[in-house]
């Protein structure tokens, strides 16, 4: 019976098996790239909103503090999205006829709330508390990026668990001085572990305990 395979197939099969290792590794690498790509993670992707709200304009140009709108950021889990009334504080006076702001006026007039698309959305099995992060010295910009430079709003971090853990494993690398917590644009240049920095694990709770975020 003649041989079905030519002897060179030995080499080919060896190369194939050897190559398969690389192929698999590459597939794995590709999968990881895809998962971390903006397409999946949504980082740097601008979401459509009912009103093209510019943080750059309000924060940098007008100098409005974060807490003027996000009122509960220091006291609650949720930072708070301003009610239409907050917009109308100013916009009943300035840009009162702007076409762009018609949805805001319509909301106020017709008693219909504005419906914003969530930019930062944690899975429902994760519990995050804004107030304690602010209190321990995690600046707004550390997670939300340079909001003062965003004409429209996008997500600047993946919110993946690996990203959370970067800080929960070594918070001293990421925290700011109290006066810099609400600074709008500058990410703290030099992370520090100085005495005036509030973060200190006095009570010995490990921030990497699962039940810190998952319960």
């Amino acid at each position: 019976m003649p041989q079905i395979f030519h002897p060179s197939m030995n080499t080919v099969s060896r190369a194939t098996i050897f190559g398969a290792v690389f192929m698999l590794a590459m597939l794995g690498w590709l999968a990881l790239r895809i998962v971390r790509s903006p397409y999946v993670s949504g980082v740097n992707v601008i979401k459509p909103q009912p009103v093209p709200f510019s943080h750059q304009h309000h924060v940098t140009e007008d100098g409005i503090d974060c807490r003027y709108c996000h009122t509960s950021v220091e006291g609650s889990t949720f930072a708070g999205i301003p009610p239409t009334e907050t917009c109308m504080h100013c916009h009943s006076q300035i840009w009162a006829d702007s076409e762009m702001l018609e949805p805001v006026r319509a909301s106020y007039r017709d008693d219909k709330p504005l419906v914003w698309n969530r930019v930062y959305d944690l899975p429902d099995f994760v519990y995050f508390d804004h107030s304690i992060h602010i209190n321990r010295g995690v600046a707004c910009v550390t997670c939300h990026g340079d909001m003062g430079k965003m004409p429209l709003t996008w997500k600047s971090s993946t919110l993946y668990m690996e990203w959370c853990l970067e800080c929960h494993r070594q918070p001293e690398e990421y925290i700011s001085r109290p006066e810099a917590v609400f600074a709008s644009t500058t990410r703290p240049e030099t992370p520090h572990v100085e005495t005036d920095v509030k973060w200190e694990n006095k009570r010995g709770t490990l921030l990497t305990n699962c039940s810190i975020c998952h319960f």
Partner: protein
Amino acid sequence: MDASSKKWAADPRFKILPQQAPAMTDGIAVWRSIRESPASEPEHGSIFEEFPADAATAPDEPSRRHFLKIMGASVALAGTGGCFTQPQETIVPYIRAPEQIVPGRPLYYATAMTYAGASLGLLVETHMGRPTKVEGNPLHPAVPEVMAQANERANDERLRFGATDPFGQAIVLSLYDPDRSQTVLRRGQIDTWEFAYSDLRAQLDRLAPAGGEGLRLLTELVVSPTLADQIQELLAKYPGARWHQYEPVNDDNSLAGARLAFNDDVATSYLNTPDVVLSLDADCIADGPMRLDHARRFRWQYLGPDGAAMSRVYVVETSSTLTGAAADHRLPASPQTVIAFALAVARAFGLELPGAMEMDNREVPKPWLDAVVEDLAASRGRSVVLAGRGQPPLVHAVVHWLNAALDNVGSTIEYRAPTAARPELAVESIRDLAGSMRAKEVEALIILGGNPAYDAPADLEFAMLLGNVPFSLHLSEYANETSDRCGWHVPQAHLFEAWGDTRAADGTVSIVQPLIAPLYGGKADHDVLAALMGNLNATSHDLVRDYWQRSFGPTANADEFERAWKTALHDGILAGTQLEARTPTLRDDFAKIAADVLGQNLTPADKQPLQLSIRPDNSVWDGRFANNGWLQELPRPLTKLTWDNAALMNPRTAEESQLNTGDVVEIETGAGQIDMPVFVVPGHPRNVITVHVGYGRQRAGRVGNKVGTDVYPLRTSQTMWFAVIKRVQKTGRTYPLATTQHHYDMAGRDLVRAGTLSQYQDAPNHPPFMAEHGHSNPELSLYPEWKYEGYKWGMVVNQSACIGCNACVVACQAENNIPVVGKDQVARGREMHWLRIDNYYAAEPENPIVYHQPVLCMHCEYAPCEPVCPVAATSHSNEGLNEMTYNRCIGTRYCSNNCPYKVRRFNFYDYNAELRQEATRQLRPNPDVTIRSRGVMEKCTYCVQRINAGRIAADKEDRLIRDGEVVTACQAACPTQALTFGNLNDPNSAVRELADSNLNYSLLGELNTRPRTTYLAALRNPHPALEKLNHQEDLTQRR
């Protein structure tokens, strides 16, 4: 057996623990049911298996082929679950933000619920306007405060919790019940409130010329001052109209008894802590809104490290109740024996009734009577005697006489005016109405709440008589059996949807404030009465507020009232509104009157017939909570039965008729007959069969329809509580009962430790029942010990205090979003309760001692569940919490298999699917706890969401969490403080003190799991003479 395994078997350290009954603990033989009791044959098979046999099978067993298909698909798709991107979510802010609501932070409002004639103060947690969880309001007179001492010591701005009962906990689920009535119905057809109103007006206009003759109003027992005022107004406008009150679980006998003794309407309330309690068939710690107060006063006393005093509780009862289980001495008795016993005690204190001796008192054991008399005589002014709602007026009257003779009035007992706006005998009232209906004198009948077509005495034929009424309107939360037979049905607003007011047992007024606008457009009873008065647009808020503004008097200025009103809303009580205390005097001719009544009660002809004891249910009460899944699935006290009622009977009674648990019997009384399954209960009185009302509903809703057996057909106006049984006949059929008593068996190890107070007082440092073994051995570990610095969470369960009331179980279910699984799943051992209360019996099955043992996750320092998890979904925090991370869990169930305490629960199905199907249901869950899906393990977390909230609050102030600041849901609900949670590293914490107690022990401590949840041995305080008599052999039995 090979050589090595022989060697192992010989080594006592590797002894395989015996798996047959009875389980031995230190000194006490305990068992969990009659099948395990020492009296019965050792049994192998289902009840001694770790999990019930069916636990892992699907309800419709798939074929092998189907199984392979599913498994193939699962393997192929494994891991793709993570490939989906999250759906886009939206944020909808307010237009104008309301004051006080901060998204992400709960608000608490005080309100009160009313049942059985008095109120229970509640604090309701709301998230963004959604009520999600109920706690007790400690300012309310019926509600004991939780962690009161720690709260006093800290003296900070913390939220203080009070205890609650299962009904209070579960009422929030009813709010979101999609089966609640959602629309006005006219003869079953959808209609509107406006049309109902115009029809009502037309009727009233027709009746008005005759002064309203023919107009009848039927309410439940009215304790609301505003409602009473409105009714008086109505009766003034229509003098011919009449008002009736009916409540199936009523205090008629108590009222009649007070009239007999004092010729006056008085209600009894209790002060201070008595030393001796004698309960004559009163289920006082598990029945009615005052149960929490009674549990605290009568049973629980603080057990300090030096073993403070305990009260001694004697219970004579005609059933098996929690009060009996909590007693130091319990005498199961027939109804006649209770009367005979009451008279015998009274005779010992000088009440001579001619004829009393004729009572057949064979069942009254002499030593028992002597012990009770001795204790009562020795603690004059420090005792309490009470009678149950089922006992005849004579017993209540004799109890009044006894309390007076024992100098208890003024020291442990006080009398006040009854809470009812018009105290009357409910049965007489509805009999009167039924008589008028039969005579066709009723032209228009307005029924506010209640369900008389279902629960009125059977002999009145109320449901049928409703057909005689030309115009009838029923206001009700559910379109129920009564609504079906009425012309108009109007949906009633839920307790949390409308304004109102109510009174606590001592009369203190609570304003009932709504927490949410009516979900289904329900009307309050105040609204309907206003409509009767011609006011369509009055709101319950205005009506209640106006009433109180008027009652403040015209002199009070607006600011003063405003302040008082706001304070009342904030505190949940209107201070200083107790009903006036009364000092009724016994009639001079008391003995003669009592003798006359006794003469009528003597029934020597049939001396000890088999009797039926008809009782309110611990889960559905009179049937009103039938559509509440939490309550239906709650294991009933002592039987651990879910989703059913049964005829409870004594093992010997059952044996004589060759009956077993699950056999269906025909029970016939003078009123008719019913078929229902038998449940054999150790210690149940011999010649009594207990049945509970509230089941067999036809129009309760999807949850409660056709659950259990309706026993109201046997309940007539003559036999409201006891009926003579003519015949009990085995039908040959059996009925599957879902009881959890044998679920999660801990293989008969050393579980319950118990002793007596005197044993403890004799040797407080080494009580004889606290054996040395069972302590963990630190040398067993290869690793250095982990030092828990900072917080070290732990819990101590005081078994002396636990009364098995189930409040903690429902509280846990509400707080932690635990699903309801249904009867079929419970029968397979898949109930999801994170906290269960195990029952253990000791001593002879005829009258056993009962131990309640709440079992929750032990949070073992060396947790056996952790190393076996292949994905590290269960791990240990550095504060000692055994964490369960749902999103990591892949459902191998290895952890549950390896848990010696059997406290882990697995989601075999997507039990939360109804949340997606029912829009209103989505409003209920606690937003601070993840909703688990199918295939995920879950268990007690020590309410880690509350710990985290407390930690965040403390961290912001750069301090440690203070003792009592974090209270778990179960602890907050407990009326007797049987559960104490806290930081074991805090030397001054309450939990540390209890953990250091000489009564403290760990469950299965010999396994070296080092549980953080530990137990205090159960102490009883028996009378020395009786103890010697009854339990000598059993209690001193050694391993």
